[in-house]
């Protein structure tokens, strides 16, 4: 096809002369548009900043520990506990006070951020990945595959998640990895259902037919044509799933089913602090603040992301108008 045809291009096309442009023309993808909207959203910026700060807290926890000279598991029974053996409040030495074993609360809070962020992000990502694949398959292949997968998801969704998580973990024993797997296991089905719904409607679109008429394989259609069109709600769901996972992990740790002590985790700290709240308010407040601020930021960010992708969705009104 090396010949060039002299096609009579009518005026109405408005294409302009064909010639080398000064800069390659970049398309404005829907992603780009969403990102632009996000950039100008003050709430999104603020919550992102907070999340970054918390991430830095997690990453630089060892540095902070080194700076104050207290390790996360070091017990300072003389300086960290009062003569009666009660935790010491915030002072110059222990900026956020100590816990019942004389450990530095501040350092432990910083380390706790690691667990929360790690489990929250990894578990959510895992859940979303699995959910997307299952949703794609169920929606695209339909019939038997769909029925089987949907029933599985239905059953999964009707399990009381905490009760079952408790049962599961009590058998296999708690650990960081188990926490991640369990949380992901109880989260993927909602993603799967959402994706399946989207795929069902996209499947009927003409561009999918076009791809099939070109001879594209099923896998290619699913991942190249359908997937980019379901990603938007999936990403929104991911940002909202992260705080849920963080809370789930904290709850598991609270019940003693999360990370194993003495590894610091916010949930674990809050569990111990119940026995001491009357004498050590800092033991409740600071880990609690850590949790609250983290989840709040992710939730706010998630709301903004949802707005960015669907500007018609009026966050304030909760409607699409």
């Amino acid at each position: 096809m090396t010949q060039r045809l002299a096609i009579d291009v009518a005026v109405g096309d408005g294409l302009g002369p064909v010639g080398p442009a000064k800069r390659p023309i970049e398309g404005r993808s829907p992603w780009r548009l969403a990102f632009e909207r996000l950039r100008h959203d003050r709430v999104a910026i603020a919550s992102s900043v907070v999340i970054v700060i918390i991430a830095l807290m997690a990453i630089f926890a060892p540095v902070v520990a080194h700076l104050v000279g207290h390790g996360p598991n070091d017990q300072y029974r003389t300086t960290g506990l009062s003569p009666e053996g009660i935790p010491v409040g915030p002072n110059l030495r222990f900026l956020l006070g100590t816990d019942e074993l004389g450990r530095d609360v501040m350092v432990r809070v910083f380390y706790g951020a690691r667990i929360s962020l790690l489990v929250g992000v990894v578990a959510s990502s895992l859940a979303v990945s699995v959910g997307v694949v299952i949703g794609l398959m169920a929606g695209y292949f339909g019939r038997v595959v769909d029925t089987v997968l949907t029933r599985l998801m239905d059953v999964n969704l009707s399990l009381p998640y905490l009760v079952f998580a408790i049962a599961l973990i009590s058998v296999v024993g708690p650990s960081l990895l188990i926490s991640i797997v369990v949380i992901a296991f109880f989260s993927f089905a909602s993603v799967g259902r959402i994706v399946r719904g989207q795929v069902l409607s996209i499947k009927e679109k003409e561009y999918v037919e076009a791809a099939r008429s070109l001879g594209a394989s099923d896998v290619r259609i699913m991942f190249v044509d359908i997937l980019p069109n379901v990603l938007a709600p999936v990403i929104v769901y991911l940002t909202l799933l992260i705080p849920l996972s963080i809370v789930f992990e904290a709850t598991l740790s609270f019940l003693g089913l999360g990370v194993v002590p003495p590894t610091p985790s916010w949930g674990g700290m809050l569990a111990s602090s119940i026995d001491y709240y009357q004498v050590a308010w800092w033991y409740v407040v600071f880990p609690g603040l850590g949790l609250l601020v983290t989840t709040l930021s992710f939730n706010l960010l998630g709301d903004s992301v949802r707005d960015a992708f669907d500007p018609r969705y009026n966050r304030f009104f909760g409607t699409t108008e």
Partner: protein
Amino acid sequence: MARFLLRRVALGVVVLWVVATLVFVLYFVAPHDPARLIAGRQATAQTLADVKRRLGLDRPVLSQYGSYLWRLLHGNLGYSFVNQEPVTSIIKRDLPVTASVAFGGAILWLVIGVLSGVLAATRPRSIADRTTTALALFFYSMPTFLLGELLLLGLFFRLHLAGVDFFPGGGYVGITTSPVEWARHMILPWITIALVTAATYSRLTRGAMLDVLGEDYIRTARAKGLRERRVVYRHGLRSALTPVVTQFGIDLGTLLGGIIVTEDVFSLPGLGQQIVNSITRQDLPVIIGLVILASAFIVVANIAVDAVYAVLDPRVRLS
């Protein structure tokens, strides 16, 4: 309608069966030694052998499964390892506590959630609206147990120090013993359970109401001269309720989670605390029994929710 319910019940039975099987696989078949699990870590070889024989663990798996299901169907949930008490009687004993927490909490969360949502929806963009939305977001982000602890710290302890003894620091008093005391002990747990979930319902109701109130038929009702209150509640709320009902069905699992945690924080001797203790003590029959009970509850409650949904939305019945 009957056929619709029948299908739901059938599905529920299937789910229960799956749950029972999963639990069975988890505890009896999983690649660890169930006998050791049951006998405890310090068991001697003799005890292990005894346990094995007693539990029939030397029989083929399928026959164990069969007798397990058989016992379940007869309402026999086994006996606690700790004190040989039948699990069913444990349940009977602790259920009132959990039920008090659950129903009170659920009612409270529905009322607070829906009412605040309606409030916000009827006064869009007002101070009331903004505050409600902000509060909703705040509580939505809080883990239940954290709220419980903060309430203990703030409402119990601080007030106690100040001489106000209204809120107790935990514990349970039966309703038959003293209704007033019962209520007094339940307030903080109810608030704990309710506030976190109410936040979701508040946002949901608000969104749904706003959608509905913008509809033309609402405008017609107003134009006809109906009182605003009637418009909002009779017409608006009715349509807005369907997503709320749907969400409620989904939240039943959350309710159970909230109960477990709340009972722990407030030292309430209910089923939630029972399950947590059983795990520490590795009291398998109790764990199994409670897991199955929880699933049964969810299945039944879901059917009830579906029934309500069908009443509210006739389209569902006919599909």
